[in-house]
């Protein structure tokens, strides 16, 4: 049955078929029966990578297959969400080795985008922790791959945006925790230079993230809050928390109403929000111990928060620039504040060394900025693309809905990636709106 489909940014919206499966044999039938398809998890990528004329939803394929509570090894079908995984592993003293800023994504989505978290420097992207996984190819063959078996398939599947096949089973290593709490410290940075030196000072922290006010100009340019954190140990907890150190967070949620007043998205409200966020931190430094939820998944507490950008949707511009390209970073931030096109949320993270073929992460700074769709945005983003290319930067495919194929230039193993998808899907059945737009998949003759 056709329905309207879109991802987190609500742009683009297409009419497409969404099929589901509960058992492997049903998936086999879909893969052989559909002429063109792409796998789809929670649809929480921002752009068009989980969209195609037929999508195969993995959400019903969500069973846990094994959990070694001694060694911390977890094995599951690909449609399970991180939230469901956490509910099972946290009470046993384990955590996800890597997690993005939302726990509502699927494990399949975590692999296909090779997601990174606030600990990329120390823990890399998600794929580093995979023991092995199964991929169902377009030709209907199921292959188990890992760093050692079918390494080319493995490499191209991690961050490969679903283009090698449907990931069906993933076995991965967890991270040991003593408590489900986080010990965090928030530090104010007056400007860009101060921020860069704080990065240096706190480089050994496990988790680092920065909220940056993109609209500040002049001497306040780069005004931001740096948050560094570690998993709390028992000694960090107060008596109350110590009674139940591995507790799960509750389920309280706010909902953004379906129709937001227009003013919410104008520059004024963006400024106001940034100010509020900033004012929370009166002191230069604030330390506290909190449950993992508000630290990792701040926005999950607000249902449909993406509605705040209005009905036309938005795109998120997430890029990475090499560490030495701080000029490029400053140039981009300046262009954004000059245009007053800034976004509701702007998050800056440090990434460690690059570890796989097509994944986004490489050593450098990554910034994610939301742009509500309105007049001039796409032209402006094309300008930012120019700056990025010049400084060796690249864009995160999972956030992209609009860039041109030339922007893939700074993915050094692009050609190798293309040849591997061709090898495993010679008929070019697996394709998304994005893969067609970016010419990652052979031009279709329809």
């Amino acid at each position, binding site marked *: *049955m056709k329905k309207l489909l879109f991802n987190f940014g609500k742009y683009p919206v297409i009419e497409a078929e969404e099929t589901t499966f509960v058992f492997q044999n049903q998936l086999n039938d879909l893969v052989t029966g559909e002429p063109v398809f792409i796998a789809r998890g929670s649809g929480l990528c921002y752009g068009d990578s989980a969209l195609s004329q037929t999508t195969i939803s993995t959400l*019903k394929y969500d069973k846990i*297959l094994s959990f070694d509570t001694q060694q911390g090894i977890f094995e599951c079908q690909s449609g399970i969400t991180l939230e469901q995984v956490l509910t099972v592993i946290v009470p046993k003293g384990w955590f996800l080795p890597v997690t993005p800023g939302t726990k509502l994504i699927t494990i399949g989505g975590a692999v296909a985008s090779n997601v990174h978290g606030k600990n990329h420097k120390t823990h890399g992207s998600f794929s580093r922790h995979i023991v092995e996984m199964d991929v169902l190819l377009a030709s209907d063959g199921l292959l188990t791959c890992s760093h050692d078996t079918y390494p080319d398939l493995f490499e191209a599947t991690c961050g490969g945006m679903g283009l090698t096949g449907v990931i069906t089973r993933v076995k991965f290593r967890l991270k040991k925790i003593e408590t489900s709490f986080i010990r965090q410290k928030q530090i104010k940075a007056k400007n860009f230079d101060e921020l860069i030196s704080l990065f240096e000072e706190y480089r050994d922290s496990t988790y680092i993230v920065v909220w940056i006010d993109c609209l500040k100009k002049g001497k306040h340019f780069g005004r931001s809050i740096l948050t560094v954190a570690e998993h709390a140990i028992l000694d960090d907890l107060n008596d109350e928390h110590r009674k139940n150190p591995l507790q799960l967070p509750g389920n309280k949620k706010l909902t953004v109403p379906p129709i937001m007043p227009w003013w919410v998205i104008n520059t004024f409200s963006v400024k106001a929000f940034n100010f509020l966020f900033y004012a929370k931190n009166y002191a230069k430094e604030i330390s506290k111990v909190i449950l993992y939820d508000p630290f990792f998944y701040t926005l999950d507490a607000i249902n449909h928060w993406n509605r705040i950008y209005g009905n036309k949707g938005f795109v998120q511009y997430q890029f990475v620039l090499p560490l030495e390209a701080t000029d490029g970073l400053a140039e981009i931030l300046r262009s954004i504040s000059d245009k007053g096109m800034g976004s509701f949320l702007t998050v800056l993270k440090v990434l460690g060394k690059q570890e796989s073929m097509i994944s986004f992460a490489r050593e450098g700074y990554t910034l994610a900025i939301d742009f509500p769709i309105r007049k001039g945005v796409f032209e402006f983003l094309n300008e930012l693309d120019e700056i990025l290319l010049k400084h060796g930067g690249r864009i995160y495919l999972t956030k992209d809905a609009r860039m041109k194929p030339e922007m893939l230039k700074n993915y050094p193993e692009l050609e190798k990636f293309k040849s591997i998808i061709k090898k495993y899907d010679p008929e070019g059945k697996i394709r998304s709106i994005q893969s067609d737009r970016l010419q990652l998949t052979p031009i279709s003759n329809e």
Partner: protein
Amino acid sequence: MTNNKTVLILGATSDIGIAIAKKFASAKYDVQLAARDATQIQALKSDIEIRYEVACSTFSFDALQYASHAAFFEGLTPKPDITVCIFGVMYDEDDALNDFALAERMINTNYTGAVSILNIAAKYYMAQKQGAIIGISSVAGDRGRASKLIYGSSKAAFTAYLDGLRNKCFKDGVHVMTVKPGFVNTKMTEHMPLPKALTAEPALLADVLYKAFTKKKNTVYIKWMWRYIMLIIKNIPEFQFKKMKL
């Protein structure tokens, strides 16, 4: 062996069966999963064991193999405290009209097969003077309609059977609950455009079913509107009803 009570899920590959199995497991019941192809439910078994930390076992069961039912029930250890009958098929009614083999199969799965296995469970429970049976019938059984000719009548028969069984078992303290879902978003209905407000997710069905079971309800509709919709449909005079396209 745990001290938990045990629930038997007949039709464990269905979306509704999976949801009901998980719901009982989350309430700390041990679970026995039965399906035609037991290899299909191994993943559900591990999932239930790991998520809910209860015991879970799997069995092969075919509703149409009546002769095997006694041995199947015999083979369950421990015997389930609750038997939930979920299996059922809905074929295209035009096909079923043109091909009696199909109509017969639908009737035999939804009614004859259910009677065969539930008779066995009911006799056991009556002898034990405890136990419960939950049957998933359908609103389609509340009144015969052209668009659900065979399916509806098989479910009507199943509903009548459950009503009778409840009456028969009452004196022995065995509870029988009839569940009449309206639309449920499952594999069975994936290709039909269903009105959203009237359609339940399997997880909601399981929640409502479990709650009704703990309150010892006799008949339960999923989504309250259905009780009234069916009340109206049942009360349309036949001379009018027969002219309607339903």
